[in-house]
């Protein structure tokens, strides 16, 4: 299993575009991909779930994945989390 923690850099947190990108990145991995924030762990392959953790700027989010291309998926999600993208 791959597990890494990231700090959310986007000023508006994980909203529309970043959330969409996270789901796309999660789908790189064939197996399971999770986001965890404040004890809440959700599947990163669901837009609803990714939105529902309500991650804001400076929050720490732990990404974990298991299965083929787990590492690639985690890194791709990490890149989204660590980017301050304008919406």
């Amino acid at each position, binding site marked *: 299993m791959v597990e890494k923690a990231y700090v959310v850099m986007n*000023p*508006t*947190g994980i*909203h*529309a*575009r970043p959330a*969409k990108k996270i*789901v796309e990145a999660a789908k790189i991995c064939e197996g399971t991909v999770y986001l965890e924030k404040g004890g809440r762990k959700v*599947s990163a*392959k*669901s*837009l*609803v*779930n990714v*939105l*529902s953790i*309500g991650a804001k*700027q*400076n929050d720490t989010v732990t990404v974990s994945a298991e299965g083929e291309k787990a590492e690639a998926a985690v890194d791709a999600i990490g890149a989204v989390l660590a980017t*301050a*993208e*304008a*919406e």
Partner: protein
Amino acid sequence: MMATEIKGIAASEGYAIGRAVILREEAAPQGITYIDAGQEEAELTRFDSAVTAARGELEAIHARMLEDGREKEAEIFEAHLMLLEDEELIGAAQEKIRGQRYKAEAAMNKAGEDVASMLAALDDEYLRERAADVRDVSKRVIRKLSGASDSDAMQAAAGDSKSKSILFAFDLTPSDTAQLDPSVIGGFVTAAGGRTSHSAIIARSVGIPAIVGAGEAALQIEDGKLVIVDGAAGLVLVDPKDDELARYEALRQQAEGKRALLEQFRGKPSVSADGHQVELVANIGSAQDAVAASEHGAEGVGLFRTEFLYMGRPDLPTEDEQFTAYKEVAEAFGHGAPIVIRTMDIGGDKELPSLQLEKEDNPFLGYRAIRICLDRPELFKTQLRAVLRASAFGELKVMFPMIATLGEWRQAKGLLEQAKQELRSANIAFNEQIEAGIMIEIPAAAQMADRFAREVDFFSIGTNDLVQYTMAADRMNPKLGYLSDPLHPPVLRLIDQVIRAAHKENKWVGMCGEMAGTPIAIPILLGMGLDEFSMSASAVLPARALLSRLDRAKLASLAEAVLDLDDAEAVRAYVEQQVPELNP
């Protein structure tokens, strides 16, 4: 007999004349219906093909939106497509069919409602709005299950191409609104909704006149009736008479011509004919205004009058309440848009029950704005902390009103530093580099602008007060109108002096009085080198259009010449004569 009228909330300006088309809500599946044991697989197949059909429909809409260059709306449908693959939504519905033998319609409805109510309960306005998208997607799937295509009434409306249709509905979903074709739908009227509802926002961006919140009356109308939509007044005229029709047809044509002309300046930078760029931003009083200002083409906010958060209530707004309001304003604009937050300007003509201010003989010369704030630092620091916290979400700047002396500025700046320290110790994020500036509205500060310029990050000239203090004329007194004019050379000289002083220290200068959006003043201010013009939102596009015709280099001498004229009348006549671009 006069036409029957329906009143609602003016959601999108403009006039439309056409035949009423009623968009009837399909009834949501009532209660839960079950399938027989053994039918699960067949029902799942039926469900999956409905999802596939819905996907095809969404992909087609998405492609059409992109083709039309409507990227904002296209993004809504990208999200819808993603929801259509979501395990929490579609997966949950499949699970209800497989595990609990729900009928497909009931399963989709229940799964959609579960997710929508979860999102609606979250403490985030953006996510709450997404609940509408989830419901929209589930409805589309349910519609596919019954074999229907996109709303029949929309099709019917599109069918009659002779005259435009006016759509009447209880409410419009985001996909209904985004699909409105302005060449077929002249306008719409909904029973529910408010000015910031999704449908109202899209109506304004597409440019369809719209009235929302019209209540039951909007649904009582008969199909095919001739109606007029007055989007400016929030009024529907049913069965209008000939003279009303003629009047509105003239208004409609006039508005259309003007609009087409201004439309080309939306989303464009504010640049003069010779390539000098300035900022055109808006004066606002609430987060709602910010949404409207962004739609009107403003690049940001030059003045957020925060006192409106304090007014009309018995208690003071909390830090959290203020934080939310400032953050919402920042979010209404894109990332990096400048948002100038003016700390509260209570007193003068604005009273506040919760502060129990004493009545004064000369309130405009009295205990007001920064004078109250410095006297009551706890009240002030609550606001400063809220502004700082919101600065983590956008390009916020803080501005102090009614500064007369360097001492006042330093004291205010000191309290800002204290507020920063408090947040630091509490580990709360904010922008350490937040700009702090002052309003120049007291002649004393204008005279000392060179000294202030060394310490502040920016100036914003508040002309309404600067004029009344310079001319010693109460701006509320109609008899003194001839004095209350920012074009008087003594006022222009102060403005010129302030701009020069700031630029000498490489600081920027804005203006947030009415003058900044007044066409006759814009050539003078551009010539003087003003960097930021803040005005009411509706003045932004006309100002940008005017700016594009002006040559800044040529106006420098005009800006100097007006300083030597006798009075406002002479300035007005001179500018009108020298600047033919004012009346193209």
